[in-house]
Each structure stands twice: as C-alpha cells, then as structure tokens.
C-alpha cells in the first residue's frame, strides 16, 4: 500500500509556523520530518511518523505554491486562491524576507550578480546555512534591490510599499540595498568585528545625510546614490589638514572644549593631528568610486584602530567626534558644513 496522492486543503489556509521555519531554513521534507520528530511532537500529540510525513509534505506544497506570491507581497494580499488572515499574511511575508545575520555579513556590499550567486555554496559551507536558504535570502536581496533601485522617494518607504515589510525589516533592507549599490567593502578581516547592525546604522545615517534625497527631497529623490556634489564638497575639507594654522586652531578649539571631559585627553591631544588627517583624507578621497568602496576599511584603519590602540572608551570617541565636527563650524570658511560620523564601536 503506497500513498499515491495525499492532500489537505482548508478554506482558510493552514500555516504551521514551525514547518514554515524549517522550509525557510531550506530543509528537505525528510530532514524536516526528522527535526520535527526530535522536537518531541509525536509524544505530545500521539501522532505517527507517517502522519508527520504527510503533514510536512502538505505544508511544503502549500509554501511552494505561496512562494510565487511571496515574491511580490502585494499579490499575496490581493490573490483569491489562498484565504489567509491578514496577520498570517504579514507573518508569512516577514519571515520570508527575514535573513540570517551570518549570511548578510557575507554578501553585504557585494554586487548582487550571478557571480556572487555562484559563491553561495561557499557561503553555505562557511556559515552552516543551507544552500537553499542562502539562495532564498540572496534572491530576496536581489529582488528588493531590482524593484527599488531606480525608484524615487524614500528608500525605506519604497521597500515597505512594495514588499509590505515591517519598519525594522524595511530599514535593514534599505541598508542592504544601499550597501549593494555603493559596493562598500565589508568583508575584509579588519571589518569582521562589525555586525550587520553596525553597518545598517551607518547606512541609515548616510542615507539621511549623504544622498541626493537628503539634500533636496523635491527633485530627483534618490536614496540609493551618494550625492556627488556633496562628495566633491568634501574635498574642501583638505584645508583642515593642509593649512597648518587651521589645523592648530581646530585642535585648540577641540582641546579647549574637551579638557577635563575626556578620559583619554592626553592621548587625544597627542594624536589629534594624525586622527584629523586620517579622517579628512578618507573624506576627501570619496570622489573616487574605489575609495568609496573602501570607506569602512579606511575609517577603521585611519581612525578606529588608532583610537582602539589607545583604549578610548566609546563615550570619549563620541564626544570627540561631536566636538571635532562642531568646532569646524566656528572656523572661517566652514559655515553650515557637514557631518561625518564614524562607525560606533
């Protein structure tokens, strides 16, 4: 006796969250059944392995049919084939677009191309995430990227509108899209200590302050590209280190303001010129695409590492940077200027 056909169709589509997770994690039906058996579900419910197998198959089939709709979430809302309560729809979408921290760190800033996709099996072995799941996550990144790439308006809003993601997840995707578009290098060994959250935080600030959308929300509202003019303007900062007087003035302004407030004051005072030179050089080079990509590497090399070797506490770094940029405003020729913030760590 073999089961040729075995299906269950509910008027309201049944979604088992646990099975959905297993499916998203890329487990095959037999692996999923084994995992479910291990979870003790048979003992809890008194079911047999055959029942579990049939149930898992059924859910997998449903998810497979839903997947097509999940690629364009608004379709899931308007389709008539599966009757799913709104909260469940939201859950399906949110979980489908969720990604693994380990995975996103591997592809963040990489070009979302076929080439990268070919490397997914390496990533899979490295991270322990199944290849299937890696593919889904990669395809999600790519899909979101393709849809919002050329779109006007706020990046987060666009993603939210077209993929119906939660605010949190939409922001993460905005960061991923932003990084992919600008191809920031994040994979260097030096940067390994940084989490996706750290990069996402930077991305958010950069989108807010460095993009075309940040400058003028009326015309050519593009959140994904850095504002070229702004980058050009950053060259002017060279004055801060090239002009000896200005450098000294800047230093004295910062030192006066921070005296007694900084635990590492003496180190700061001793290192000021180096740090300032590092920061300004990084900023001034950003007109070259190559240097844009290396932004984070450079920042870590030129600023974070010196600070770290002197054991600056985080609060001191923050104080210093705030004062550093604030003081510039009181220098001649720097009125209304700009803000640059390094990675928080």
């Amino acid at each position, binding site marked *: 006796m073999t089961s040729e*056909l075995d299906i269950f169709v509910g008027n309201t589509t049944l979604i088992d969250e646990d099975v959905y997770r297993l499916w998203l994690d890329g487990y095959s039906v037999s692996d999923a059944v084994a995992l479910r058996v291990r979870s003790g579900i048979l003992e809890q419910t008194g079911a047999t392995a055959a029942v579990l197998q049939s149930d898992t198959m059924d859910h997998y089939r449903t998810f497979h049919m839903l997947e097509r709709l999940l690629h364009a979430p608004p379709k899931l809302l*308007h389709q*008539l084939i599966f009757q799913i309560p709104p909260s469940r729809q939201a859950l399906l979408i949110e979980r489908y677009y969720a990604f693994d921290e380990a995975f996103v760190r591997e592809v963040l800033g990489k070009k979302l191309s076929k080439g990268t996709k070919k490397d997914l099996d390496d990533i899979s072995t490295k991270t322990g995430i199944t290849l299937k799941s890696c593919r889904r996550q990669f395809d999600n990144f790519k899909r979101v990227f393709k849809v919002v790439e050329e779109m006007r308006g706020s990046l987060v809003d666009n993603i939210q509108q077209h993929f119906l993601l939660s605010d949190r997840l939409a922001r993460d995707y905005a960061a991923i899209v932003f990084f992919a578009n600008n191809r920031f290098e994040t994979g260097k060994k030096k940067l390994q200590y940084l989490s996706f959250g750290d990069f996402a935080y930077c991305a958010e600030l950069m989108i807010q302050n460095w993009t075309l959308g940040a400058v003028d929300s009326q015309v050519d509202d593009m959140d994904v590209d850095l504002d070229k003019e702004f980058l050009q303007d950053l060259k002017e900062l060279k004055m801060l280190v090239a002009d000896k007087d200005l450098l000294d003035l800047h230093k004295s302004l910062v030192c006066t303001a921070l005296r007694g407030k900084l635990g590492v004051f003496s180190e700061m005072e001793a290192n000021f010129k180096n740090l300032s030179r590092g920061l300004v050089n990084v900023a001034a080079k950003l007109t070259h695409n190559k240097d844009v990509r290396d932004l984070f590497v450079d920042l870590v090399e030129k600023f974070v590492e010196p600070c770290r070797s002197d054991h600056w506490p985080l609060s001191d770094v923050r104080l210093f940077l705030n004062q550093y940029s604030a003081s510039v405003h009181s220098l001649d020729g720097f009125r209304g200027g700009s803000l640059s913030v390094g990675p928080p760590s």
Partner: protein
Amino acid sequence: MPGKLKVKIVAGRHLPVMDRASDLTDAFVEVKFGNTTFKTDVYLKSLNPQWNSEWFKFEVDDEDLQDEPLQITVLDHDTYSANDAIGKVYIDIDPLLYSEAATVISGWFPIYDTIHGIRGEINVVVKVDLFNDLNRFRQSSCGVKFFCTTSIPKCYRAVIIHGFVEELVVNEDPEYQWIDRIRTPRASNEARQRLISLMSGELQRKIGLKVLEMRGNAVVGYLQCFDLEGESGLVVRAIGTACTLDKLSSPAALLPACNSPSKEMKEIPFNEDPNPNTHSSGPSTPLKNQTYSFSPSKSYSRQSSSSDTDLSLTPKTGMGSGSAGKEGGPFKALLRQQTQSALEQREFPFFTLTAFPPGFLVHVGGVVSARSVKLLDRIHNPDEPETRDAWWAEIRQEIKSHAKALGCHAVVGYSESTSICEEVCILSASGTAAVLNPRFLQDGTVEGCLEQRLEENLPAGCGFCHIPYDELNMPFPAHLTYCYNCRKQKVPDVLFTTIDLPIDATVIGKGCLIQARLCRLKKKAQAEANATAISNLLPFMEYEVHTQLMNKLKLKGMNALFGLRIQITVGENMLMGLASATGVYLAALPTPGGIQIAGKTPNDGSYEQHISHMQKKINDTIAKNKELYEINPPDTSEEIIGSPIPEPRQRSRLLRSQSESSDEVTELDLSHGKKDAFVLEIDDTDAMEDVHSLLTDVPPPSGFYSCNTEIMPGINNWTSEIQMFTSVRVIRLSSLNLTNQALNKNFNDLCENLLKSLYFKLRSMIPCCLCHVNFTVSLPEDELIQVTVTAVAITFDKNQALQTTKTHVEKSLQRASTDNEELLQFPLELCSDSLSSHPFPPAKAVTVEKASPMGEGNFRNRATPPCASSTVGVVKMTPLSFIPGAKITKYLGIINMFFIRETTSLREEGGVSGFLHAFIAEVFAMVRAHVAALGGNAVVSYIMKQCVFMENPNKNQAQCLINVSGDAVVFVRESELEVVSTQQPTANCQPSCTGGEVTT
C-alpha cells in the same frame, strides 16, 4: 421577452504575460450569453487592464435566463495570428432571478482556464431587469428559490411542506463525441463545462416548474448530481423537497389554503403500478433494456428488504407479549389514517430534509434502502430520458414499500446516489421511514383537536423513538421495550436513521463518528456476468456493513445511529462499502448490552483463554468509551433532569402498580432489556479478524470529537472559529496476493490514517469537533482507492461543555417553548437561537488566527502599510446549515459549480498531489469569489458532490472534475449585530485600491 441582462466589464488584474517579447498582454473580453456576443476594446500592453466598458445588454427569455450561464472570455489580442484565450468565467445568473436574493453580481472573479488554472482576475458587474410574466403556460420558473440546506432555512418559516420533486436530463458527453478526437483538450473541457452548466440550469428550471405546479415557492434540500456514464452519456439528476416558505421577518401572511392541487400533481406512468418492470419495456425503449434489466424487484430487492429489516432493528426473537401498547393503539391508527390521506396523494412521500420543525416528525421506523444494478447503454434520445427515469422510479417504489412495511407513510432524510464502473451502474437510494404530522403537509385546519391530544400523548424528546408499526403485526422480529423516557410506548432497542438528531431528542453524553468499512474482491467480468456478480455480492456486503455498524455501536456503549450513509462503490475488480453515521445514546432507548464472544470449541483450553482475553478487552473498551463519551447510566441522568419527570423510584413503583393491573410482562420486559447482550460468535478466522478490527479503531485524541451530523450531540457551546477542509487520498494496492482481508486492512488503515492526519493537522483548534464528516470512496482504477473527505472543524468552549446540567435545563426550556409557541413561529428557530446565544459571552469573539509570537498588535500595525488594508473579504465555507455564533440574515441563492482541470505537465505541477491541491484551492477560490460577488460572506450546506480524478503518469497527464454546491448567504455575528450593520457594505465592496499592484 421578459428579461434584460446587463453586463459591464470593469477591469482585470494579475493577468498572465501573453507576449514574451514585452512581458505584457493586450487583453480584451468577449461577453457571451446564448447566441449573442459582445466585445470590449483591446487594452494594450498591461497586466492590469482597465476596460471600463459600456453596459452590454442582452434581451432574453426568462427560460434562457435560467438555463444559460453568462460566459466571459478573456483573450490576448494578436494582430497576426489567432487571439489566444487567457481564460473564462462562467457566472450563473440564477440568484438574480429571485426577488429576495441578490440584486447585483459585482466583484473580482478568477479567470479560469482548464489547462492552466486560475490566471488573474476580472472585475464584472451583472444586473437583470425582469419583467413580470403572467403567462400560465410558461416554461420558466423564475422566482422559485433553491436551497441546498436540508432543513428549513434559518430565516424562513415553512407554511407547507409539499414533498418530493425530482427530475433528470440526459445528454451525450462531449468528451466521447467523435469531434473530441480532433479538438484540443481545452475545447473539449470547455464544451463539457458549458454543457453541464446548461443542463443544470435546465434541470433547475424544470424542477421549479414542478414546484410551481404544487403551488410551492421553494425547493429545500436540493441535491443535484452528475452521472458520468462515459460512452453512454451524461446524466444530470436532482431531487429536492418542495415547500412553501415564508420570510420570517415579514408578518405571518398565511397563504390561501391549497391542499387540493397536489392531487393531480403528476401523471407519470408508473404511478400506481406495482411492478414497474413491465413499463421499462415500453414501446420507445429498445429491446435491450428489457434483457439488461436485472430484475431488481425480484432477486436483489428482496434481499435488500430483508437487510433493511436488519438495519432498523436487531434480529431477535422472543419479545414479550405486547398487549401493553394498547392504549396507544387506536390513537396511532387514527393518526396513521390521517397522515395516510395526506400522503397518499403523493407518488413518492419522500423528503430530502434531515432536520425538521418540531412536531413534524412523529415516529421513526428505521432506515430503508434499495439498490439496483444496471447495465448502461447509449442514450438514444436525449429528449426522452425514460430509461433512467424508469430505473429511479423502480427504486423509489421499492423504498416506498419498505417504508410501508415499517408502518410508515413517509421517508425522510432521503437521498439517491450512483456508482459507475465502465458499463455497470449501481443505483442506490436510502432514507428513514417515518410517520409525519400532517399539520405541515397541508394547511391544517381540521386536526386541531387531534393535535392537542397528540401533544399530550407524545412527550417531546422520545416521541420519535416510539415504534410506528403495530407490534402484534411486526414486519420483522424485534426486541421491544417500554420507552425509558415516558414509559408509555414501546421503543426498539436500537435505532438507525439517515436524519439529523432531532433538536428535542434527549441524549446522554456525547456522540461519535462510527464507520463500517468493507471491501470485497470480485472477478473481472463483462456486461451481464459482471452485473450478476455484483448483484450477488451486494446483499452480503450490506449485511456485513450492518453487522459492523452494530458491533461498533455496542462497543461505544450507544444505542442509536443518526445521519447513516452507506456508500457502495463498484470498481473493476472489487466492491467497497463505507458506512458513516453518528452514534449517540438516546435516553429513551434501553441501555445497550455488551458484546459477548462465543467460541466454537469450548474444550480447547488455550482457545478458551484467548476468547476470555478478547472478551475482557472488549469489556474494557466499552467501559472506556462510556467514560470518554460521558455516557452515564440513565438513572443518574434522570436525577439531574429533575422536576418534569417524577423520581425514578416513584415512577417505577407507579409503573409496577400499573403493570400489575394490566400486564405483568411489562416489568420483566424492562429488566430484560438491560441484561441483553449481543453475542458475537467466533467460528472462524474471519470472525476473529472482525473482532480484531473492531478493537483497532482508535478513538480521536483528547479534545477531539467527530460526527457526520450537523452538530455534535452533547456539545452546544461552539465558538465562531471554523475551518472547512477537503482532504483527498489515493492509495495504490500492491497487486500481489490480494485477499479480502488484506484489502479490508488496507482500506481500514487508509480511513484511520486519514482521520489521524486530520486530528493532527487541526490540533491547534482543540477543543474541537469535526462536524459533518463526509467520506466518499471511489475506485478510479484497478489498484487505486480514492477517499475524499470534506468536513468542518469547529472549536467549542470546554469550560461550558462540562456543565451538563445546563443543557438539561435548556432542554426543558425548549420543551416548554415547543408547547407554548405553537404555530406562530418556528419554535425550532427560537430554540436554536436561545441555545446558541446563551453560551456565548458576547465579548468573546475568537479570531481565526492564532497569536504570533512576534507580538501581533504591533507587528500588524507596522507591517501593513495603508494600501494593505484593502485585502480580499473573508468568505466562510461550511457543510453545515448554520454558522456558529452568527445569524444568517439573507440567502442569496444557490451555488452550483462544475470545473474541469487538465494538465499535460503533471510533473512540473508537483505531481498528482500538487496538481489536485492547486485545483481544489482554486475551486474554493472560485466559490468564494462568486459568493463575494453576490454580496455574501459565507457558503452554508457546502458539499463537494464529485471529485473525479484520473491520471496517466506515463504520459505526464492528469484530469480532474469537481462539482460543488452550497447556499450563498449573508451572516452577521451575534456579538457584533449592531456594528456590522454599518460595516457590511464595506466588507462587500471590492478593493478598488490599485496602489499596491505595481509588480515590476
């Protein structure tokens, strides 16, 4: 010229890409009704076209309005080659033809293609302007309402229940016409869909005409079926119960007395003929018929009448001398006489209803059934479907005579079915013989005083159990006792019926689903030999199915079966029998005795030991089941009932004194009932197997109940969480050494595993009950068994379920209301309301979705941007006639849909499972879309009447036909009655926001 049909094509969405080059589609729409076709403009390069067409107007006869479906075809315009069809929508405009149903059909319909499935949606608005036509000889029957529901629909009152209506139409099956060899599968499928749609329209119209002739205005319990007879044609047949219904909200306007017209109702030739066989050799039928007619009334029907005897009562000799029934005697006779007069005018006093207004059902005799085996031959003249008519007439006659033998003049819960394999067809009919109160059958004016007496004499809650037949002159040996409720009339020890549990019946504990499953191998044979073989097997199968049912019932410690449905399916090399019913413990019937096992060789020690071991196991199971289903011995329950019935001890003394004066046997009789045990003789291994299989049935996991009736006896505090589902399984038998036993085991395992899977899948709904569990078996090929289950899972409130006393109070309340309300309104209606409204705390609106671990409230707010709120309105589906915790405010019309799906890329669509899963989901979607377009939010009495699945994996092909029906309704949650009245329109209006639809 009495009708104008107006159609407007508004827009499309999610269309498939038809032009690979541009990834877009140039879509236009053809609107066809009858022979008239209109076209919209081509909307270039869009997957979401906005046609916004003018109103296309069709001026048509109302006859056509009833028969024809509106056919909407979406096509892709192609300048150089033929336009490609994207898909079609068939809209049945029948609901627009009743005055009280829907006024407009408007909404998004899935565009369906028989090869590709659903391909996008189209927004359509349909209206009908109907002119009154007073022509007496008209051919249409517009205005007659149809209900699938097998009880009086919730917002109506039955003025008169006229009785049985039936009709059948036949045609050639397009799939088997010569042209099918040259046309595409798509064209052939569409021809079939269209033909069946036309035929069901015609059938409904013809039935409507009969109803009008009877002066009725509605058909309740309408059941329409297709017989795919293959080469010999296509039969669409329907049965129903004609009624005169009155909308409840309107003041009770009594119709003029109309009891006479039914007299010359019909003149079908076999009317009074005792031997219908002679008629089948009528002049118009070819000689063939005569020879193939397998004399059902001779060989097989005799068998079935005896088996039918078994069904109603246990064969048992030596009952007490029954003079005690005397007091009821003359009265009974009077009643019978009267009912007889009311029913005799009817050719077939059958009722497809399974639930009745209180007082309608007086006595229940037992199950009556008839089967006959026929050989199919080509239908020569589609306009004269006499052969098929004659076949059914024979069977109905047989049913009628069985009912008579049981002292009954009517058959309720009546249904008909067929099973076809190649050229052999088994026709089956079954129902419950009953004595009815004539009050509802015609406009009662004379019987006033009699009714008074009737109600005095028949305490509600047990009256229907009392035997209708004369016990001195019993049609079969049976064991009778005095009713355990009223102690006045006699009752059988077991009662089998095809109806739902009457609402006023006193039940102890809960009920459960009981199934008998059986397979019998048969030799492959041709034509007559095959039919003879089947005819010979049938009685044995029926007997065995019955024995199994009886054993399982005893094992559950119960004494009555409701909703019994026995399905016999014929295949190439086997016959399958599946009986499903809901077992209950009726307080009025005696406590069932246990099951005693008797071995054949009493001297063998180890054998003896084995027997006693089995006996112990059986006894344990019975005890366990009694506990599980909360079946307490009757004395305790009597104490709970309290006042309306005297103390048990007092009463028995009372009885004894009575009996002493009149008849001494009475008391003996009562005690005898308790000692009675059912003896199972184990004389061979087969019987041993049977006992084993009895014990292998696993009860559902705790928190689960199941029944195949509308509601579960003993549970009435349903929450509003419901989940309707269809599950299909096909197994392939290993062809090696197939024996009856192996086959039985396979079939048993299939059903048990299926149930287990359902319990597992629905575990999140615990405590819950699977209601209206409907199993269908088919044998699509030699070694394939297909089981289809449709049911609804309803969650109930456990805490309140424990308060059994409450239900008793409510029961007595009901009883009071039944007495008081009289004819003003249906007490049924009132009772069910008070029943259901009481247990629900109004604030407790349980939502279908379970809380997600992510903190749903916040999550939802954040996750759904503004445009996401315009989702598709929820449409509930249920096989029940009601929606728990809600009130049905309007019936919008019948939904009767037929779909074919075919694929030539089975593997690519996920194999057979993927294919059928998608198809059933699509069928649900199309039903929901039609209901939503009618302005409804639920389908009640939903049934999947047919699911014919054929596969050819070698060719990578599969085909499936599905036929579903139900009643589209508008319901309002009881807890939000006021709120929803304002929300209703928004729920119905279709999402017009297109902001979220940009996909590329």
